[in-house]
Protein backbone atom coordinates (compact mmCIF):
# COMPACT_ATOMS: atom_id res chain seq x y z
CA UNK A 1 0.00 0.00 0.00
CA UNK A 2 2.76 2.38 1.01
CA UNK A 3 4.81 1.33 -1.99
CA UNK A 4 1.89 1.99 -4.31
CA UNK A 5 1.35 5.45 -2.84
CA UNK A 6 5.02 6.32 -3.28
CA UNK A 7 4.89 5.12 -6.88
CA UNK A 8 1.75 7.17 -7.55
CA UNK A 9 3.38 10.21 -5.95
CA UNK A 10 6.50 9.79 -8.07
CA UNK A 11 4.30 9.46 -11.14
CA UNK A 12 2.49 12.67 -10.21
CA UNK A 13 5.79 14.49 -9.76
CA UNK A 14 7.08 13.16 -13.08
CA UNK A 15 3.87 14.23 -14.82
CA UNK A 16 4.19 17.70 -13.27
CA UNK A 17 7.78 18.06 -14.50
CA UNK A 18 6.87 16.71 -17.96
CA UNK A 19 3.98 19.18 -18.16
CA UNK A 20 6.45 21.97 -17.35
CA UNK A 21 8.58 20.74 -20.25
CA UNK A 22 5.81 20.30 -22.82
CA UNK A 23 3.61 23.34 -22.21
CA UNK A 24 6.23 25.98 -23.18
CA UNK A 25 7.68 23.80 -26.00
CA UNK A 26 4.29 23.48 -27.66
CA UNK A 27 3.78 27.20 -27.27
CA UNK A 28 0.79 27.31 -24.93
CA UNK A 29 2.71 29.87 -22.87
CA UNK A 30 5.64 31.93 -24.11
CA UNK A 31 9.00 30.26 -23.54
CA UNK A 32 10.45 33.61 -22.56
CA UNK A 33 8.07 33.78 -19.58
CA UNK A 34 7.94 30.14 -18.63
CA UNK A 35 11.06 28.20 -19.66
CA UNK A 36 10.79 24.39 -20.01
CA UNK A 37 11.79 22.22 -17.05
CA UNK A 38 15.09 21.19 -18.66
CA UNK A 39 16.29 24.79 -18.95
CA UNK A 40 15.27 25.55 -15.37
CA UNK A 41 17.15 22.43 -14.29
CA UNK A 42 20.31 23.45 -16.12
CA UNK A 43 20.07 26.95 -14.62
CA UNK A 44 19.69 25.24 -11.24
CA UNK A 45 22.95 23.30 -11.71
CA UNK A 46 24.72 26.49 -12.82
CA UNK A 47 23.54 28.18 -9.63
CA UNK A 48 24.94 25.36 -7.51
CA UNK A 49 28.40 26.05 -8.91
CA UNK A 50 28.14 29.77 -8.26
CA UNK A 51 29.70 31.09 -5.05
CA UNK A 52 27.28 34.05 -4.94
CA UNK A 53 24.33 31.66 -4.73
CA UNK A 54 25.74 29.93 -1.67
CA UNK A 55 26.42 33.20 0.12
CA UNK A 56 22.86 34.34 -0.67
CA UNK A 57 21.54 31.05 0.68
CA UNK A 58 23.69 31.56 3.79
CA UNK A 59 22.27 35.09 4.29
CA UNK A 60 18.71 33.82 3.99
CA UNK A 61 19.30 30.98 6.42
CA UNK A 62 21.03 33.30 8.90
CA UNK A 63 18.11 35.72 8.89
CA UNK A 64 15.63 32.87 9.19
CA UNK A 65 17.43 31.04 12.00
CA UNK A 66 18.24 34.14 14.10
CA UNK A 67 14.73 35.51 13.72
CA UNK A 68 13.07 32.21 14.53
CA UNK A 69 15.31 31.56 17.54
CA UNK A 70 14.62 35.02 18.97
CA UNK A 71 10.89 34.66 18.43
CA UNK A 72 10.77 31.18 19.98
CA UNK A 73 12.76 32.27 23.02
CA UNK A 74 10.76 35.46 23.55
CA UNK A 75 7.44 33.77 22.84
CA UNK A 76 8.01 31.01 25.37
CA UNK A 77 9.31 33.31 28.10
CA UNK A 78 6.50 35.85 27.66
CA UNK A 79 3.87 33.12 27.35
CA UNK A 80 4.91 31.34 30.54
CA UNK A 81 5.24 34.63 32.39
CA UNK A 82 1.75 35.74 31.33
CA UNK A 83 0.25 32.48 32.52
CA UNK A 84 2.10 32.20 35.82
CA UNK A 85 1.67 35.72 37.16
CA UNK A 86 -1.93 36.16 38.32
CA UNK A 87 -4.18 38.57 36.36
CA UNK A 88 -1.48 39.20 33.73
CA UNK A 89 -3.22 36.95 31.18
CA UNK A 90 -6.54 38.80 31.55
CA UNK A 91 -4.88 42.19 31.49
CA UNK A 92 -2.93 41.53 28.30
CA UNK A 93 -5.64 39.66 26.36
CA UNK A 94 -7.08 42.70 24.58
CA UNK A 95 -3.65 44.07 23.67
CA UNK A 96 -2.55 40.72 22.23
CA UNK A 97 -5.77 40.36 20.27
CA UNK A 98 -5.17 43.78 18.78
CA UNK A 99 -1.45 43.47 18.01
CA UNK A 100 -1.50 39.91 16.66
CA UNK A 101 -3.42 40.47 13.42
CA UNK A 102 -1.34 43.52 12.45
CA UNK A 103 0.39 42.41 9.26
CA UNK A 104 4.15 42.47 9.78
CA UNK A 105 4.62 43.83 6.25
CA UNK A 106 3.17 47.07 7.59
CA UNK A 107 6.52 47.46 9.36
CA UNK A 108 8.51 47.34 6.10
CA UNK A 109 8.74 51.13 5.64
CA UNK A 110 9.83 51.55 9.25
CA UNK A 111 12.45 48.81 8.88
CA UNK A 112 13.80 50.50 5.74
CA UNK A 113 14.08 53.87 7.46
CA UNK A 114 15.66 52.49 10.61
CA UNK A 115 18.02 49.82 9.32
CA UNK A 116 18.12 50.08 5.52
CA UNK A 117 19.09 46.77 3.94
CA UNK A 118 20.85 45.43 7.03
CA UNK A 119 20.11 42.07 8.60
CA UNK A 120 18.29 43.91 11.39
CA UNK A 121 15.47 44.91 9.00
CA UNK A 122 14.91 41.26 8.16
CA UNK A 123 14.99 40.33 11.83
CA UNK A 124 12.44 43.01 12.76
CA UNK A 125 9.89 41.57 10.33
CA UNK A 126 10.66 37.91 11.02
CA UNK A 127 10.58 38.25 14.80
CA UNK A 128 7.36 40.28 14.79
CA UNK A 129 5.56 37.76 12.57
CA UNK A 130 6.72 34.57 14.28
CA UNK A 131 6.55 35.81 17.87
CA UNK A 132 2.73 35.82 17.88
CA UNK A 133 2.51 32.29 16.46
CA UNK A 134 4.58 30.99 19.39
CA UNK A 135 2.97 33.15 22.07
CA UNK A 136 -0.58 32.17 21.13
CA UNK A 137 0.27 28.48 21.11
CA UNK A 138 2.00 28.74 24.51
CA UNK A 139 -1.08 30.44 25.93
CA UNK A 140 -3.39 27.75 24.45
CA UNK A 141 -1.11 25.07 25.81
CA UNK A 142 -1.12 26.48 29.31
CA UNK A 143 -4.93 26.66 29.28
CA UNK A 144 -4.95 22.97 28.46
CA UNK A 145 -3.07 21.97 31.63
CA UNK A 146 -5.01 19.30 33.49
CA UNK A 147 -6.44 20.99 36.64
CA UNK A 148 -6.08 17.75 38.61
CA UNK A 149 -2.36 17.54 37.79
CA UNK A 150 -1.94 21.20 38.70
CA UNK A 151 -3.73 20.75 42.01
CA UNK A 152 -1.85 17.55 42.80
CA UNK A 153 1.43 19.39 42.26
CA UNK A 154 0.24 22.16 44.55
CA UNK A 155 -0.77 19.81 47.35
CA UNK A 156 2.58 18.04 47.10
CA UNK A 157 4.08 21.44 47.81
CA UNK A 158 5.81 22.06 44.49
CA UNK A 159 6.98 25.64 44.12
CA UNK A 160 6.16 27.89 41.18
CA UNK A 161 9.29 27.02 39.25
CA UNK A 162 8.90 23.27 39.84
CA UNK A 163 5.26 23.47 38.70
CA UNK A 164 6.29 25.30 35.55
CA UNK A 165 9.01 22.76 34.91
CA UNK A 166 7.14 19.51 35.66
CA UNK A 167 3.46 20.25 35.05
CA UNK A 168 2.97 23.28 32.86
CA UNK A 169 5.83 22.78 30.42
CA UNK A 170 5.18 19.12 29.49
CA UNK A 171 1.43 19.81 29.05
CA UNK A 172 2.09 22.84 26.89
CA UNK A 173 4.90 21.28 24.84
CA UNK A 174 2.70 19.79 22.08
CA UNK A 175 1.20 23.24 21.51
CA UNK A 176 4.61 24.92 21.64
CA UNK A 177 5.87 22.49 19.00
CA UNK A 178 2.90 23.29 16.76
CA UNK A 179 3.77 26.95 17.24
CA UNK A 180 7.40 26.35 16.33
CA UNK A 181 6.38 24.48 13.18
CA UNK A 182 4.03 27.28 12.07
CA UNK A 183 6.54 29.95 13.02
CA UNK A 184 9.32 28.24 11.04
CA UNK A 185 7.23 28.49 7.86
CA UNK A 186 6.14 32.06 8.58
CA UNK A 187 9.74 33.08 9.33
CA UNK A 188 10.86 31.80 5.92
CA UNK A 189 8.06 33.70 4.17
CA UNK A 190 8.99 36.92 5.94
CA UNK A 191 12.74 36.47 5.39
CA UNK A 192 12.19 36.09 1.64
CA UNK A 193 9.69 38.98 1.62
CA UNK A 194 12.14 41.30 3.35
CA UNK A 195 14.84 40.38 0.86
CA UNK A 196 12.52 40.83 -2.11
CA UNK A 197 10.99 44.12 -1.08
CA UNK A 198 13.72 45.80 0.96
CA UNK A 199 16.64 44.32 -0.94
CA UNK A 200 18.47 42.87 2.06
CA UNK A 201 21.04 40.38 0.75
CA UNK A 202 19.75 36.83 0.33
CA UNK A 203 17.80 34.60 -2.03
CA UNK A 204 14.93 37.08 -2.34
CA UNK A 205 17.25 39.85 -3.51
CA UNK A 206 18.90 37.44 -5.97
CA UNK A 207 15.48 36.56 -7.39
CA UNK A 208 14.72 40.25 -7.84
CA UNK A 209 18.05 40.82 -9.62
CA UNK A 210 17.37 37.86 -11.91
CA UNK A 211 13.92 39.24 -12.69
CA UNK A 212 15.06 42.76 -13.52
CA UNK A 213 17.92 41.47 -15.68
CA UNK A 214 15.50 39.19 -17.60
CA UNK A 215 17.37 36.05 -16.51
CA UNK A 216 14.11 34.09 -16.43
CA UNK A 217 15.43 30.49 -16.12
CA UNK A 218 17.71 31.58 -13.25
CA UNK A 219 14.74 33.24 -11.55
CA UNK A 220 12.71 30.02 -11.75
CA UNK A 221 15.69 28.00 -10.54
CA UNK A 222 15.98 30.26 -7.48
CA UNK A 223 12.25 29.96 -6.82
CA UNK A 224 12.61 26.18 -6.91
CA UNK A 225 15.41 26.58 -4.35
CA UNK A 226 13.12 28.56 -2.03
CA UNK A 227 10.48 25.84 -2.45
CA UNK A 228 12.97 23.11 -1.56
CA UNK A 229 14.10 25.18 1.40
CA UNK A 230 10.49 25.49 2.57
CA UNK A 231 10.02 21.74 2.13
CA UNK A 232 13.17 20.98 4.14
CA UNK A 233 12.05 23.34 6.89
CA UNK A 234 8.60 21.68 7.04
CA UNK A 235 10.07 18.19 7.16
CA UNK A 236 12.71 19.26 9.68
CA UNK A 237 10.15 20.91 11.94
CA UNK A 238 7.93 17.82 11.85
CA UNK A 239 10.91 15.61 12.74
CA UNK A 240 11.88 17.81 15.67
CA UNK A 241 8.25 17.79 16.80
CA UNK A 242 8.09 13.99 16.71
CA UNK A 243 11.39 13.65 18.57
CA UNK A 244 10.46 16.14 21.27
CA UNK A 245 7.03 14.58 21.76
CA UNK A 246 8.06 10.93 21.51
CA UNK A 247 6.55 10.39 24.97
CA UNK A 248 3.24 12.05 24.10
CA UNK A 249 0.22 9.96 23.21
CA UNK A 250 -0.48 11.88 20.01
CA UNK A 251 2.86 10.61 18.68
CA UNK A 252 2.96 7.22 20.41
CA UNK A 253 -0.40 6.48 18.85
CA UNK A 254 -1.79 4.82 21.94
CA UNK A 255 -5.22 5.63 23.19
CA UNK A 256 -5.34 6.47 26.87
CA UNK A 257 -8.31 4.81 28.48
Amino acid at each position, binding site marked *: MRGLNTALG*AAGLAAFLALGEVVPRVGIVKEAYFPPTSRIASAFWDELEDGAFWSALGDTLTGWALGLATAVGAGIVVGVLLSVVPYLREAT*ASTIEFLR*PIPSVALIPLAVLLYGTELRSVLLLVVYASFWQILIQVLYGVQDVDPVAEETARSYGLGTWARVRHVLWPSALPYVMTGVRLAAAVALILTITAE*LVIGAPGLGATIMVAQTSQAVPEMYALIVVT*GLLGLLINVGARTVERRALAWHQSVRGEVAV
Partner: protein
Amino acid sequence: MRRALIRLLFVVALPAVLLSVWWLASDGSTNVFWPPLRTILRTFPDVWTAHRFTTDVVPSILRLTAGYATAAVVGVALGTVIGSYRRVRAVCEPVLEFLRAVPPPVLVPVIMLFAGIGDTMKIVVITSGCVWPVLLNTVEGVRAVDPVMKETALSYGITGAARLRTLVLRSASPQIFTGLRQALSIGIILMVISEMFAGTDGLGYTVVQFQRSFAVPDMWTGILVLGMLGFLLSVVFQVVERRVLGWYHGLRAAARRTP
Protein backbone atom coordinates in the same frame (compact mmCIF):
# COMPACT_ATOMS: atom_id res chain seq x y z
CA MET B 1 -22.39 44.78 37.44
CA ARG B 2 -19.10 44.83 39.35
CA ARG B 3 -17.94 41.81 37.36
CA ALA B 4 -18.58 43.60 34.10
CA LEU B 5 -16.72 46.68 35.34
CA ILE B 6 -13.69 44.62 36.32
CA ARG B 7 -13.69 42.89 32.95
CA LEU B 8 -13.92 46.22 31.19
CA LEU B 9 -10.99 47.44 33.30
CA PHE B 10 -8.92 44.44 32.22
CA VAL B 11 -9.72 45.12 28.58
CA VAL B 12 -8.87 48.83 28.61
CA ALA B 13 -6.15 49.12 31.23
CA LEU B 14 -3.11 47.89 29.37
CA PRO B 15 -3.86 49.55 26.03
CA ALA B 16 -4.42 52.82 27.90
CA VAL B 17 -1.12 52.44 29.75
CA LEU B 18 0.77 51.58 26.56
CA LEU B 19 -0.74 54.47 24.63
CA SER B 20 0.08 56.95 27.36
CA VAL B 21 3.63 55.61 27.60
CA TRP B 22 3.97 56.06 23.83
CA TRP B 23 2.47 59.55 24.08
CA LEU B 24 4.72 60.65 26.95
CA ALA B 25 7.91 58.99 25.73
CA SER B 26 7.60 60.35 22.22
CA ASP B 27 6.37 63.79 23.24
CA GLY B 28 9.13 66.25 22.48
CA SER B 29 11.01 63.60 20.52
CA THR B 30 13.29 65.17 17.94
CA ASN B 31 14.31 61.88 16.37
CA VAL B 32 13.11 62.07 12.78
CA PHE B 33 12.07 58.41 12.69
CA TRP B 34 10.07 58.46 15.93
CA PRO B 35 7.83 61.50 15.70
CA PRO B 36 5.67 62.35 18.74
CA LEU B 37 2.37 60.48 18.82
CA ARG B 38 0.72 63.90 19.00
CA THR B 39 2.12 64.75 15.55
CA ILE B 40 1.09 61.39 14.09
CA LEU B 41 -2.47 61.79 15.32
CA ARG B 42 -2.63 65.37 14.07
CA THR B 43 -1.43 64.27 10.62
CA PHE B 44 -3.92 61.42 10.49
CA PRO B 45 -7.07 63.29 9.36
CA ASP B 46 -5.06 65.32 6.84
CA VAL B 47 -3.63 62.21 5.20
CA TRP B 48 -6.56 59.80 5.34
CA THR B 49 -9.23 61.95 3.80
CA ALA B 50 -12.38 60.55 2.20
CA HIS B 51 -10.74 61.04 -1.18
CA ARG B 52 -7.75 58.92 -0.22
CA PHE B 53 -10.05 56.24 1.12
CA THR B 54 -11.75 55.86 -2.25
CA THR B 55 -8.50 56.00 -4.24
CA ASP B 56 -6.24 53.85 -2.07
CA VAL B 57 -8.04 51.87 0.61
CA VAL B 58 -11.01 50.71 -1.44
CA PRO B 59 -8.98 49.39 -4.42
CA SER B 60 -6.72 47.46 -2.03
CA ILE B 61 -9.66 45.87 -0.27
CA LEU B 62 -11.40 45.04 -3.55
CA ARG B 63 -8.28 43.32 -4.87
CA LEU B 64 -7.88 41.39 -1.64
CA THR B 65 -11.54 40.33 -1.72
CA ALA B 66 -11.39 39.23 -5.36
CA GLY B 67 -8.17 37.26 -4.92
CA TYR B 68 -9.20 35.73 -1.62
CA ALA B 69 -12.67 34.72 -2.82
CA THR B 70 -11.23 33.09 -5.94
CA ALA B 71 -8.69 31.22 -3.83
CA ALA B 72 -11.40 30.04 -1.44
CA VAL B 73 -13.64 28.72 -4.23
CA VAL B 74 -10.80 27.08 -6.18
CA GLY B 75 -9.19 25.69 -3.04
CA VAL B 76 -12.37 24.15 -1.65
CA ALA B 77 -13.43 22.75 -5.06
CA LEU B 78 -10.06 21.17 -5.89
CA GLY B 79 -9.54 20.08 -2.30
CA THR B 80 -12.88 18.26 -2.26
CA VAL B 81 -12.01 16.40 -5.46
CA ILE B 82 -8.48 15.51 -4.32
CA GLY B 83 -9.61 14.57 -0.83
CA SER B 84 -12.43 12.32 -2.02
CA TYR B 85 -10.32 9.94 -4.13
CA ARG B 86 -7.43 8.11 -2.51
CA ARG B 87 -5.58 7.58 -5.78
CA VAL B 88 -5.84 11.21 -6.87
CA ARG B 89 -4.52 12.23 -3.47
CA ALA B 90 -1.53 9.91 -3.73
CA VAL B 91 -0.67 11.29 -7.17
CA CYS B 92 -0.99 14.94 -6.19
CA GLU B 93 0.52 14.88 -2.71
CA PRO B 94 4.27 15.40 -3.46
CA VAL B 95 3.57 18.16 -5.99
CA LEU B 96 1.20 19.93 -3.60
CA GLU B 97 3.67 19.62 -0.72
CA PHE B 98 6.28 21.31 -2.87
CA LEU B 99 4.01 24.06 -4.20
CA ARG B 100 2.81 24.84 -0.70
CA ALA B 101 6.38 25.11 0.56
CA VAL B 102 7.26 27.85 -1.96
CA PRO B 103 7.07 31.12 -0.02
CA PRO B 104 4.16 32.99 -1.70
CA PRO B 105 5.93 36.37 -2.07
CA VAL B 106 8.35 34.94 -4.68
CA LEU B 107 5.30 34.58 -6.92
CA VAL B 108 5.20 38.35 -7.35
CA PRO B 109 8.13 38.57 -9.80
CA VAL B 110 6.88 35.52 -11.73
CA ILE B 111 3.34 36.76 -12.12
CA MET B 112 4.62 40.22 -13.04
CA LEU B 113 6.17 38.57 -16.13
CA PHE B 114 2.82 37.18 -17.24
CA ALA B 115 0.35 39.76 -16.12
CA GLY B 116 2.26 43.06 -16.05
CA ILE B 117 1.74 45.32 -13.08
CA GLY B 118 -2.01 45.97 -13.21
CA ASP B 119 -4.90 44.78 -11.07
CA THR B 120 -4.84 41.35 -12.72
CA MET B 121 -1.31 40.73 -11.48
CA LYS B 122 -2.22 41.64 -7.92
CA ILE B 123 -5.37 39.53 -7.86
CA VAL B 124 -3.56 36.55 -9.38
CA VAL B 125 -0.74 36.93 -6.84
CA ILE B 126 -3.20 36.97 -3.93
CA THR B 127 -5.13 34.00 -5.34
CA SER B 128 -2.07 31.88 -6.02
CA GLY B 129 -0.71 32.52 -2.54
CA CYS B 130 -3.97 31.96 -0.66
CA VAL B 131 -5.08 28.85 -2.48
CA TRP B 132 -2.61 26.39 -0.88
CA PRO B 133 -3.61 26.58 2.77
CA VAL B 134 -7.30 26.34 1.77
CA LEU B 135 -6.64 23.46 -0.63
CA LEU B 136 -4.51 21.37 1.72
CA ASN B 137 -6.78 21.87 4.72
CA THR B 138 -9.83 20.97 2.63
CA VAL B 139 -8.07 17.77 1.52
CA GLU B 140 -7.37 16.88 5.15
CA GLY B 141 -10.91 17.74 6.22
CA VAL B 142 -12.59 15.79 3.42
CA ARG B 143 -10.32 12.81 4.06
CA ALA B 144 -11.24 12.73 7.72
CA VAL B 145 -15.03 12.50 7.24
CA ASP B 146 -16.36 10.06 9.83
CA PRO B 147 -16.77 6.66 8.10
CA VAL B 148 -19.88 5.86 10.15
CA MET B 149 -21.55 9.03 8.90
CA LYS B 150 -20.45 8.22 5.36
CA GLU B 151 -22.11 4.81 5.55
CA THR B 152 -25.20 6.21 7.24
CA ALA B 153 -25.57 8.74 4.43
CA LEU B 154 -25.10 5.97 1.90
CA SER B 155 -27.75 3.75 3.42
CA TYR B 156 -30.20 6.64 3.61
CA GLY B 157 -29.61 7.17 -0.08
CA ILE B 158 -28.09 10.63 0.31
CA THR B 159 -25.95 11.20 -2.75
CA GLY B 160 -24.79 13.90 -5.11
CA ALA B 161 -25.13 17.54 -4.18
CA ALA B 162 -27.00 16.81 -0.95
CA ARG B 163 -24.22 14.49 0.22
CA LEU B 164 -21.60 17.10 -0.63
CA ARG B 165 -23.43 19.88 1.14
CA THR B 166 -24.71 18.15 4.26
CA LEU B 167 -21.99 15.55 4.83
CA VAL B 168 -18.65 16.23 3.15
CA LEU B 169 -18.36 20.00 3.28
CA ARG B 170 -20.14 20.18 6.64
CA SER B 171 -17.75 17.87 8.41
CA ALA B 172 -14.73 19.37 6.65
CA SER B 173 -15.75 22.94 7.48
CA PRO B 174 -13.72 23.32 10.71
CA GLN B 175 -10.60 22.35 8.77
CA ILE B 176 -11.59 24.56 5.83
CA PHE B 177 -11.89 27.51 8.19
CA THR B 178 -8.43 26.81 9.59
CA GLY B 179 -7.15 27.05 6.03
CA LEU B 180 -9.13 30.20 5.34
CA ARG B 181 -7.69 31.83 8.45
CA GLN B 182 -4.11 31.07 7.38
CA ALA B 183 -4.95 32.26 3.87
CA LEU B 184 -6.27 35.58 5.17
CA SER B 185 -2.97 36.60 6.75
CA ILE B 186 -1.06 35.49 3.64
CA GLY B 187 -3.53 37.45 1.52
CA ILE B 188 -2.92 40.67 3.46
CA ILE B 189 0.85 40.23 3.13
CA LEU B 190 0.53 39.68 -0.63
CA MET B 191 -1.87 42.58 -1.07
CA VAL B 192 0.60 44.96 0.56
CA ILE B 193 3.78 43.74 -1.10
CA SER B 194 2.29 43.41 -4.59
CA GLU B 195 1.40 47.09 -4.29
CA MET B 196 4.82 47.94 -2.93
CA PHE B 197 6.45 46.33 -5.96
CA ALA B 198 4.54 48.10 -8.65
CA GLY B 199 1.41 50.12 -8.87
CA THR B 200 -0.13 53.50 -8.84
CA ASP B 201 -2.56 53.19 -5.98
CA GLY B 202 -3.32 51.08 -2.94
CA LEU B 203 -2.25 51.04 0.67
CA GLY B 204 1.13 49.39 0.13
CA TYR B 205 2.02 51.84 -2.62
CA THR B 206 1.00 54.88 -0.55
CA VAL B 207 2.92 53.83 2.54
CA VAL B 208 6.08 53.20 0.53
CA GLN B 209 5.69 56.57 -1.19
CA PHE B 210 5.54 58.29 2.21
CA GLN B 211 8.66 56.42 3.28
CA ARG B 212 10.56 57.29 0.08
CA SER B 213 9.69 60.97 0.41
CA PHE B 214 10.68 60.90 4.10
CA ALA B 215 7.20 61.98 5.17
CA VAL B 216 7.70 60.10 8.43
CA PRO B 217 4.52 61.08 10.34
CA ASP B 218 2.46 60.26 7.22
CA MET B 219 4.21 56.92 7.01
CA TRP B 220 3.33 56.20 10.62
CA THR B 221 -0.33 56.93 9.93
CA GLY B 222 -0.10 54.45 7.04
CA ILE B 223 1.30 51.81 9.38
CA LEU B 224 -1.58 52.49 11.78
CA VAL B 225 -4.13 52.13 8.96
CA LEU B 226 -2.59 48.82 7.84
CA GLY B 227 -2.64 47.61 11.42
CA MET B 228 -6.28 48.58 11.87
CA LEU B 229 -7.19 46.91 8.57
CA GLY B 230 -5.53 43.68 9.72
CA PHE B 231 -7.38 43.87 13.02
CA LEU B 232 -10.76 44.62 11.42
CA LEU B 233 -10.44 41.80 8.90
CA SER B 234 -9.64 39.35 11.67
CA VAL B 235 -12.68 40.54 13.65
CA VAL B 236 -14.91 40.08 10.58
CA PHE B 237 -13.41 36.63 10.05
CA GLN B 238 -14.10 35.63 13.65
CA VAL B 239 -17.70 36.80 13.42
CA VAL B 240 -18.27 34.81 10.24
CA GLU B 241 -16.53 31.77 11.66
CA ARG B 242 -18.57 31.88 14.85
CA ARG B 243 -21.79 31.96 12.82
CA VAL B 244 -20.87 29.24 10.37
CA LEU B 245 -19.15 26.95 12.85
CA GLY B 246 -21.52 27.64 15.73
CA TRP B 247 -22.70 24.01 15.69
CA TYR B 248 -19.11 22.80 15.87
CA HIS B 249 -18.03 24.98 18.80
CA GLY B 250 -21.23 24.00 20.61
CA LEU B 251 -20.47 20.32 20.02
CA ARG B 252 -16.94 20.69 21.33
CA ALA B 253 -18.08 22.58 24.42
CA ALA B 254 -20.66 19.89 25.12
CA ALA B 255 -18.06 17.15 24.64
CA ARG B 256 -15.74 18.87 27.09
CA ARG B 257 -18.46 19.13 29.76
CA THR B 258 -19.23 15.41 29.64
CA PRO B 259 -15.93 13.59 29.47
